[in-house]
């Protein structure tokens, strides 16, 4: 298994840096259920890291641990070389970790633009009075951040639906808006929970392109969960395979694909 800790260069020439996130011996229990059992892995700066595994393996739970929503009973989380104390999710977000959700978690009552703007909350800190009067800092910030958000909107090609309430959008666009919201935060680490579920091939291709571009252009590190093996194998630099809360494989797509345990537990047949 490949468990790199040193910077390396990918086949297509991208520079992968030091370890950004290091999960050490994580165990997570819900009452009697052990959702994650003693798992360690790392994510290096600039890479695209995939997590795969059968349903109920504990993948989403793992993302939840990373984003601070669940506190593991055992194990340590290291981020940028420092041990991360137990934190509230919003504090984790401030460290530069943004994410999307498996069951879309957009703010249904708000327009697309407002949804994406919420992604930038951590870049805005005008005081109450300034906001109440819409003068000074509040007004300035609003414009500056709007510009940043418009760049994301352009990038993801959702200009046309800016003002639409998200409740009305079809599924695929919702996923894209969610990605936009996460990107607007300008994260160091982007966590994507099944970004392509419920999409057709064409849309998956679009989404793949966005993910690659984000990684390429902004150098954002990405961890993603996905069930479409084609996507996983094509996009990711390294893959972790989970099953019943355990890690059963970790390595490059090729290594994983040929791992017998992985084939038995997840892939069913060797996938190409």
């Amino acid at each position, binding site marked *: 298994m490949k468990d790199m800790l040193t910077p390396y260069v990918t086949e297509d020439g991208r520079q992968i840096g030091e370890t950004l996130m290091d999960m050490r011996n994580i165990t997570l229990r819900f009452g009697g259920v052990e959702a994650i059992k003693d798992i360690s892995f790392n994510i290096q700066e600039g890479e695209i890291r995939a997590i795969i595994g059968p349903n109920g393996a504990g993948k989403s739970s793992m993302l939840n641990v990373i984003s601070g929503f669940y506190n593991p009973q055992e194990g340590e989380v290291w981020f940028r070389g420092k041990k991360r104390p137990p934190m509230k999710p919003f504090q984790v977000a401030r460290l530069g970790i943004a994410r999307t959700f498996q069951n879309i978690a957009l703010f249904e009552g708000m327009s697309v633009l407002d949804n994406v703007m919420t992604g930038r909350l951590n870049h805005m800190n005008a005081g109450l009075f300034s906001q109440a009067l819409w003068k000074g800092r509040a007004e300035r910030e609003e414009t500056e951040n709007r510009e940043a958000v418009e760049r994301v909107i352009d990038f993801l090609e959702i200009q046309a639906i800016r003002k639409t309430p998200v409740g009305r959008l*079809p599924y695929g*666009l919702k996923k894209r808006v969610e990605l936009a919201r996460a990107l607007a935060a300008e994260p160091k680490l982007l966590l994507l929970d099944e970004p392509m579920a*419920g999409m*057709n091939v064409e*849309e998956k291709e679009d989404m793949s*392109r966005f993910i690659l571009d984000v990684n390429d252009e902004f150098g954002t590190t990405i961890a993603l969960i996905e069930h479409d093996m*084609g996507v996983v194998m*094509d996009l990711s630099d390294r893959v972790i395979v989970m099953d019943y809360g355990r890690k059963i494989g970790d390595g490059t797509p090729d290594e994983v694909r040929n791992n017998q345990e992985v084939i038995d537990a*997840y892939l069913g047949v060797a996938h190409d």
Partner: protein
Amino acid sequence: MLDDKPVETLLEVNNIEVIYNHVILVLKGVSLTVPKGGITALLGGNGAGKTTTLKAISNLLHSERGEVTKGAITYRGEPVQDLSPEALVKRGVVQVMEGRHCFEHLTIEENLLTGAYTRSDGGAAVQADLEMVYNYFPRLRERRKSQAGYTSGGEQQMCAIGRALMSRPETILLDEPSMGLAPQLVEEIFGIVKSLNENEGVSFLLAEQNTNVALRFAHRGYILESGRVVMEGPAAELRENPDVKEFYLGLSDEGRKSFRDVRSYRRRKRWLA
């Protein structure tokens, strides 16, 4: 596969138009038929109107402030537009909704049992079917005492399909069954669909994004684009159609492309733009 089966039309949707909230026109004249004993796939991109079509059939639009303003829907030749959803279930049409929709606070087993709500053929038969569902989805048996709200996405999906099976339906409207499922589970579920279809004679209307799998298992397909049917035909034919190949199956002349390479910023081509 079974394209030459003798067809008796079960469900017929005739030129329906659906409007949400009195202003948003979503379906602009959709017609389709579901033959008895067939698997019919309804394909199309996001927002094409697949879910809306299924909900129009099962009469679930009402609670979303949507309504069918034109056209007709008949089941076995009878108009069913004004029937309540439960009357439809009694007639054997049951829908598995997109996005799981399990009863969060009920256990998996209770979820399955609610599926048998409309049945009156006694506890033993229900128990037998419960067993059948557990056999199809062993994972559910393991988790039968857990509250559905705490099970993983895939488990919930199985639960939703299993629940629909519990009503012994004649026709199942299946909305995106593959979404969020691990590949071998997708195969498994479609396998189950197929065996239900073949062994128990259940007809399916299947809304899917995963065109690849859907066309592999379906007999006939309809392709929906922005509220209109733009193409229909036997599944095998559709699979061979070059446009379908390119846009829905991700195959080009050279075979499957890597997602990494699809970076040509290809513009969408649409039949009806």
